[in-house]
């Protein structure tokens, strides 16, 4: 069977299992990978299935540990306290509320290069504020998801650019300005687009009515120690401060969670970890399934066929190919998209400034975190606001995503002009 037919067959089996037989997405992906391996003459290809499933091992650990951390912030009372503080500060300032909240969401993404981390940390902190101020929950989730993605592409740490740069021997230097040129206008436009119409300015009495309980009087500054621990350690990681331990993001979240044991309302740590793991399980199984699916697609030649199909587009359609393929490939992972497609696209645009090109491509690749079935930013943002159907969230991300896509393509087109100023 040719590689094209195998890809079609794998997608067909997946659709059959997920949509007709209503099996979980992760399980459907795993079985469609097995079917693809058999159709490709590789047998069950057990080694490849397991190898592929480990492709997202680090991401899985980050997700589980971040979910535990988020739950700890909830049960200790930190989340309510921060909501109360933000509400008291911004209840009559719509514009500054939206922009401050956007920057807060972006911050963890800026220092870790991960939208998931942003959505599950400060995203979870600000979500109640936005909802209490009148933003519907699906729009709140869209706001957080887009904030996470913008944080991922904002300087100082943009892993997508680093991955692409690694493939073309481009050092990670001189990227702050081009990335800010892309991110700052998008952050302003997107926060106003999603939030300005729905956020209500309220008076003091109304604010008092929706104000959650603050625990600062009872626990004092200690309440913020888990957050403080996580941010300091993350900064240490991203700035490579000498003598600061390099623990990795999962260990940082776990340490922050353990600090939470001594800093607020008492809770059962094991119960919290169990609940968090249970909540994370569906997305973890999707990541394992996607890992298997992509490994078998590569093994049977499907990945190469896909990449070549987009690269073979005539020059006039190259930008269209970039705009379509990079976010679509993000269904596998935004980082995978940067590596597999970003590098050949930079080389296809080699007559342009690689710093500007890679910055623009990272903005486009970042949108992959909105692409089902993984859609990490969308799924976790939905989980933060307790929305079961994450497609409702993705619907509100569509226009902001188009803003970001257009910005990326415009920067690519204007690269020769920008080159003179940067």
């Amino acid at each position: 069977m040719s590689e094209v037919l195998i890809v079609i067959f794998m997608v067909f089996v997946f659709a059959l299992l997920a949509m007709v037989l209503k099996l979980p997405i992760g399980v459907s992906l795993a079985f469609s990978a097995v079917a693809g391996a058999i159709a490709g003459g590789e047998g069950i290809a057990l080694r490849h299935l397991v190898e592929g499933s480990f492709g997202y091992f680090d991401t899985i650990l980050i997700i589980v540990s971040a979910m535990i951390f988020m739950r700890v912030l909830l049960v200790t009372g930190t989340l309510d306290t921060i909501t109360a503080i933000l509400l008291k500060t911004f209840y009559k300032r719509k514009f500054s509320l939206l922009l401050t909240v956007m920057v807060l969401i972006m911050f963890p993404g800026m220092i870790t290069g991960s939208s998931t981390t942003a959505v599950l940390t400060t995203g979870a902190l600000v979500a109640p504020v936005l909802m209490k101020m009148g933003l519907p929950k699906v729009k709140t989730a869209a706001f957080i998801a887009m904030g996470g993605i913008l944080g991922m592409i904002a300087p100082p740490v943009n892993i997508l650019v680093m991955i692409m740069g690694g493939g073309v021997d481009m050092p990670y230097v001189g990227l702050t300005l081009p990335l800010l040129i892309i991110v700052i206008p998008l952050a302003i436009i997107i926060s106003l687009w999603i939030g300005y119409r729905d956020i209500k300015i309220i008076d003091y009495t109304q604010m008092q009515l929706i104000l959650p309980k603050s625990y600062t009087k009872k626990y004092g500054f200690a309440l913020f120690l888990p957050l403080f621990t996580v941010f300091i350690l993350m900064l240490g990681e991203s700035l490579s401060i000498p003598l600061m331990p390099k623990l990795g993001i999962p260990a940082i979240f776990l340490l922050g969670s353990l600090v939470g044991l001594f800093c607020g309302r008492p809770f059962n740590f094991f119960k919290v970890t169990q609940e968090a793991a249970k909540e994370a399980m569906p997305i973890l199984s999707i990541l394992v399934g996607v890992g298997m699916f992509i490994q078998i697609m590569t093994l049977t030649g499907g990945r190469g066929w896909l990449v070549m199909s987009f690269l073979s587009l005539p020059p006039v359609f190259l930008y269209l190919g970039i705009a379509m393929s990079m976010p679509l490939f993000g269904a596998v992972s935004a980082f995978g998209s940067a590596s597999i497609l970003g590098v050949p696209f930079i080389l296809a645009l080699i007559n342009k400034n690689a710093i500007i090109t890679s910055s623009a491509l990272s903005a486009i690749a970042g949108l992959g975190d909105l692409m089902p079935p993984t859609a990490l930013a969308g799924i976790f943002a939905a989980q933060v606001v307790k929305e079961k159907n994450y497609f409702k969230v993705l619907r509100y991300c569509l226009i902001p995503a188009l803003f970001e896509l257009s910005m990326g393509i415009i920067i690519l087109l204007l690269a020769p002009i920008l080159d003179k100023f940067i």
Partner: protein
Amino acid sequence: MSFITIKKETIKGSILFLSIILISFFSGKQFLQMHKKDIIIQGPGISSKVKLSVYFPLLKGTPGDTDVYVFKGKEEGGNLLILGGTHPNEPAGFLTAIILIENIHVDKGKVFIIPQANHSGFTHNDPHEGNPQRFPIQTPEGIRWFRYGSRLTNPVHQWPDPVLYVNPSGQKLSGAESRNLNRCYPGKAKGNLTERIAFGITNLIKKEQIDLAIDLHEAAPEYPVINAIVFHENSAELAALVYMELQMEGFEFRLEASPKNLRGLSHREWGDTTKVKAILLESANASHGRLKGKPSVALIIDGKDKNYVKASRIGRLFVPFDEKGIPLKVRVGRHVAAIKAFLSNLQEVELGKGIDITNFPSAREIIEHGTGIYLEPPK
């Protein structure tokens, strides 16, 4: 009712648990195959085999420790280091090193060969690349198998990756690059495993007063630095002489100066931190490109790939690529030809530093008859 529910859950859980045990057992057996070492047969010209930890004792007993094959000539001359297997998914590099180990005799000078520079990288494959674990080479008296590993150190040996990797030369890179040996030079004595391997190699260069060091690599055909001699500025004259000699012999190479702002790579840091003439050689390997079709043993050995033929036609490659592909024997042959040219020109630029080697494999014969003719039969 609740009893029945618990029982159902227990049964489901037990089946799942049993399945995981079985999957782990059978796949684990396959993964452990990658820890079985390649057989490298010591040729008659070898003077001694030492470990890299001799040059940096902290490596001793770690998965980063690796074999260094030493060839001492009777006459004093120059000192040469050849490095293969910096990236274990670039087979022409380590196969060239193995062919030299199994054949050469050194009459003048000293030669050090490390065939598996990142030993840990040979013990695993990259997820989502679907590569085979091993590939065969036909020798006149049977087949020998070699591992096809990963570009990076095994995460079992070095984990977790940092968010952002700042290498010993201060270059910022994505976290996974902390496991890429050719981004970790000159290394760090108290660094991670990969940085310690790099530190050991740099120490070897210093302690043995190496005059010329050649790092053997392969690159994807879509990568601009391909079929290339990458040289540090201290070896520009030598590289130019070699380039001309290779051209006269019919081998097309590019000359690429080592970029000064791209830190952590062998050709940059060896040249900056030691007195060695630092060189890196690249050949074109379709099996580790992003456009590759179905990964297979045939792709590694024959180097034929219809995707790359198409990519070449539409001008997306930096190397000619047609239906004949770029076979492993051609890639190894090019490395061998380049090394020989460096040896013949070293004396020209460094008086008294000549290295005389007999029984040096012929690049033309390798290209014509395959790499197997210069490999010892399997034992």
